[in-house]
Each structure stands twice: as C-alpha cells, then as structure tokens.
C-alpha cells in the first residue's frame, strides 16, 4: 500500500517537473539580445499628422535632425534643422542623414556640399561608439582643399551632431581605408567634431 502510494507520489512529482520544464522551455532557450544603444540623440519631434479629408489619419513619427551646409559666399558651414521620418536602426539613420545632405539645403543662401557623384555605400555604428561611413567616390572627381574640407566636415559634424553615443567618424573610400578623398583631408584616422569649418 505504502509502496503504491509512494509510486503515485513519484509519478505526480515527475509529471509536475515535466510540466515545469515544458512551461519554461521557450523562455530559457530564447536567444539573448545584446542591449541596443539608443542612437537618436534628439527628442523626437511632434508627430506630424497629415489630416487629409477623406483619408484615414496616418501619423508618421518623425525626428528632428541638424544638417550642415555651406554658405555660397565664403564656404563656411551653417546648421539647418528639418524633420525626417524616424529611422528604425542606426544604419538607416546614417543613410537618411546622408540622403538629406545630398538633397541639399532649403534655406536661401546655403549650398549643398556633396557632389552628386559621392554616394553612401554603407554606414555602421560600432559598439565602441565609432561611426564608419563607407562612401563611393567617382574616380573622376577632384577637389580643392576648401571643397574637400566642406565635404568631410559636413559628413562628420552632421553625424556626430545627430547620432547619440558616438565619439568619432571614420570614413572609408570605396570600401577601403584611404589617405584622403582628393589629396588633402586626413582620412586615415577617425575624426572628432571639426569646428574649424563652422561659421562663427
């Protein structure tokens, strides 16, 4: 009798353990994600609600960014703010910033700094806080110092101004480390914020 009772208790306990294991299995084997760094430095701007009559209101979450463009007279860099759609991850944010720089300024008196034959191949935010911008440069492009300084400063300063948790920007040319874009500005090391080119 007592042996039968003991067997029953054992069976119940085994079932309970099995049930516990079954319940806990999906949770314990779930892949552990590394904690992702926040990459949006600025507070997202107020969602712009496009209220079209008849259409369902589709609120688009946006983020306000600061872009650096050159003035037409002296070539110094000036900030310009605008709202863009909130990107999902750092790579998309870097691409969006580049595209906005390539699109050019809206303020009169400013000019774009990126020639049309410079493209972004890829942008990465490394865990170390270094941003890597891999840009494609057409071999036929040539620059003077001032133009090259504007391009590099605008890319570096726009990136560091907007992407949180970044200390430096490293620029690769056509997927590889390069001395410079066109014979002037040092690209062999990561760059911090370049203040010399900003308008006073």
């Amino acid at each position, binding site marked *: 009798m007592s042996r039968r009772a003991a067997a029953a208790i054992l069976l119940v306990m085994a079932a309970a353990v099995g049930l516990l294991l079954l319940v806990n299995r999906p949770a314990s084997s779930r892949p552990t994600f590394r904690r992702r760094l926040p990459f949006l430095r600025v507070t997202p701007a107020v969602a712009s609600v496009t209220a079209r009559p008849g259409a369902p209101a589709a609120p688009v979450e946006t983020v306000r960014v600061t872009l650096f463009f050159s003035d037409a007279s002296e070539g110094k860099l000036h900030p310009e703010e605008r709202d863009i759609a909130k990107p999902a991850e750092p790579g998309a944010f870097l691409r969006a910033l580049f595209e906005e720089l390539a699109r050019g300024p809206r303020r009169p008196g400013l000019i774009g700094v990126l020639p049309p034959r410079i493209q972004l191949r890829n942008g990465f935010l490394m865990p170390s806080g270094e941003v890597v911008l891999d840009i494609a440069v057409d071999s036929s492009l040539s620059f*003077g110092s001032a133009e090259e300084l504007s391009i590099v400063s605008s890319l570096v300063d726009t990136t560091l101004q907007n992407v949180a948790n970044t200390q430096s920007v490293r620029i690769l040319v056509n997927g590889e480390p390069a*001395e410079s874009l066109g014979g002037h*500005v*040092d690209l062999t090391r990561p*760059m*911090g914020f370049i203040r010399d080119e900003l308008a006073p």
Partner: protein
Amino acid sequence: MLTIGAKSGAQLLAGPGAVQVSVNGRSVEISRPIRSVTGVLYAPPDFFEKALFPLAGARGTWDPSQRLWTVTAGGGTAPAGPAAEPGAPVTVDVAVVHVDPSTQVVLRESTAARFEPQLVTSGIQIRWTDRKVVPPFAERRFDDPLVAAVRFEGDAVTVVFRDASLTAHAYPLTDPDRIVVEVARVVASPPIEPAPPPPPAVPGLTIVIDPGHGGGETGAIGPDGLQEKDVTLQIARRLAAAIPRVLSSRVVLTRDSDSGISLDDRTSLANHEKAALFLSLHANSSRAVGAHGSETYYLSLETSDRVSQDVARRENVAPAAAPGAPAANPDLDFILWDLAQSAHITESSRLAEAIQTQLNVVSKTENRGIKQAPFRVLAGATMPAVLVEVGFISHPEEEKQLRSAAFQESVAVAIAKAVGEFFGRRQPAAAPAAGLAVTPPPARSPGATPPPGK
C-alpha cells in the same frame, strides 16, 4: 634656368627640359633634354661637348666605356686660319720661366700652327697636327722647380715634369705666335677628370617643396580647364629658384614632373632629407562661388589630446621595440606619425603667418587668413610644415592669374621672402628636432645619412 658665364664674357643659357641651349646667343641642339632630379641638373654628354667646353675654350671627348672625359684646353677657340703657306715647317724655340707657384714654358713659333696638347705620364705633350716642326734641340734639361726637361720627338714636344703631383694646360697666343704651357701643382681637381656632378650648394639647410597632386590625380580643375597639379609644379619650380636667392640652402622637390606620389611619401621624403621646412603648394577650389584669395594652413590638432592619451596607454602596454626595427604595433606607428607634427606646431603657425603676410602684400590676393585643418600631408612632418593655397582655381579671375607666369613668380618670390624672414628671426640653436624618430612603413630610416645629391 641655368646661366654660365666664361671669363671671356661668353654666356651659356640652359634649363630643365631644354633640348636647345644658348651659347653666346647661338642656339646649340643637344641629343636629350636637360633633366632636373631633386634639384640637380643632368645633361647628356653632347651638352658638354657642344656647349660647355667650347664656352671655356676647351675641347672634350667622352669615352662611354670608361665613363671618362678627356678635356683639352685650346681646342675650342684655337685660331684655325693658317697664315703661312700650307705644309711649311714651323720653327720653334723654347723659353722656360718660373713665376711662383707655376712655370710657363713658351714655345715660340715662326708661324701659327694647329696643335693638340695631351697629358702623358711624364708630363704634357704638344703635338703639331698640320705642320712639320724644326726643333731647336732634341732634349734640354732645365734647372726649374717644376719642369725637368723639354724633349722634341718628331712633330711633338714633351714638357717633362719634376714629379707626378704636377699638371699643365696649354693655350695659343699670337703676335708673336706662341704656345704657352702652364705647369702647376695639382690643386683641388686636375683638369682631366670625368665631370663630377655639381655638389649641393649648402649642405645643412634643406627645404622640401611639395607641388600638390600629380599624375592621374589632377587636383582641382578650373572653369577654363586649368589643372591644380600643373600650377603647383610651375610655382614649385619658381620657388625652388627663388629660395636660394634669399637663403643659403638646398631645395628638394617631392616631384619635378607630372607624377603621382602618395601623401605619406611626400612627408617621408622631407623627414628623410632632414629638411628644415616642408612647404606643400596647392591651388584651392570651392563650391562657394565667392571663395577667392590665398590661405596658409598648418595642421589642426583637434584630436591630439585624445590621441596622446591613447599613445600613453599603448606605450604602457607595448614592449619597447629596438631602434630601427619595424614597429611591432602598426597602430602605435600610425599614432606616432600623427604626433610628429605636434612638436613643431608653434613654429608651423609662425611660418604660416610669415607666408600669409607676404602673400597678402605681394600677390594682392585677399587674406583668407591663417587656418588649421587636418591635412594628411602635414601630419607626419618632423619639421615646421605648412600647406599654401595660392589662390582659388575655381574662381574664373584667379584661374587666369594662376595661369600667368608673372603671378606665379610673384607668389614664389613672396613665399621665398617669408622663408628668409622665418629663418632670419629664428634662434640659431633651433635645429630640426630629432626627438621623435617617426617613419611610416614605406619610408627609409630617418637615422640614415641622406645620400649626397646626385
């Protein structure tokens, strides 16, 4: 442009790239152009044969197998016109005069005759080429400190030296017709020697000029098609000529032709030459249409604090490498290269100020001022180093200026003047600091002695 003047007032003009040289206003063609390699001019043998030796009233023959010039005086300007009837023998008498430190042997001729002097082991031999000779004697000994004897054999006379340390040259004089043989001790260089390459003017102070871009890398291109690489080379050549006029120095160009060099190799050359200054010449461009004027840059050290900390941290970890051994840690090497210029940043800013001041005064370009930027070509320089933007090639008016020889020359003179001022105010003890031995991977060891300019 090279100008050589002879005692007679004759003049020779030649320069890099020339295939025609001007000898006393007469154009002489040479087989290959004169080349300038790191500031030293190289000329083909026929330059010496057709231009240089005739200028000095000499004649030279080049033996390529022995790489030996045989130079004889008197060949170039010897009077050719025979005054007497052809073939008539020439009567010669001999006088030996010693005027310290040389001895003159005068061979008086009854009529002018062609001759060829040649140094032989015992002395100098004069051979008459178009006449028979009536000798006054076969051999006569002289009680002279330099000349032992004069000996006639056939149509030649040999002036026999006392010892082997003597040399001689011969030249004709007229009225009366005579050949003068001057015998003297060998001083620095005997007259018969392969032409040595000209030595650098002043070893000690070397200035490296870097004409920006080159080869496939055109640099900026102006609206009318002017290329930055051409402007920088032209101004660099003018500057290389202008600097020695204000400062006793040796000037080395990182390139003297349309060739491409990496930025680090340009700086490496300056480090290897232990240059006292590094001047990188550029022409600017900007998308801003209003941008114009000259600018002088020195290195921006915005990130240097962080980099220094990085070096300190790494140096505490990395084992010390043997001097001269390739750096075990490429990152360390890279960071040291970046630090090289930081030791000279004050001097570089002073140099930039001197140059910009002169550019403003002389070239009438607007002052865009003295600026700092993270330019790669300045980063590794172990001496005061600046990058001069002489004007905006993207600006149509300045493109025209940059094309003109007069503007290029005025820019070169302005920079040279500033360089002279920079050294004029400098403390004499301020030698190029060798505290940081920095070499990028492709460069030669900075500890090595630079080869003599050749």
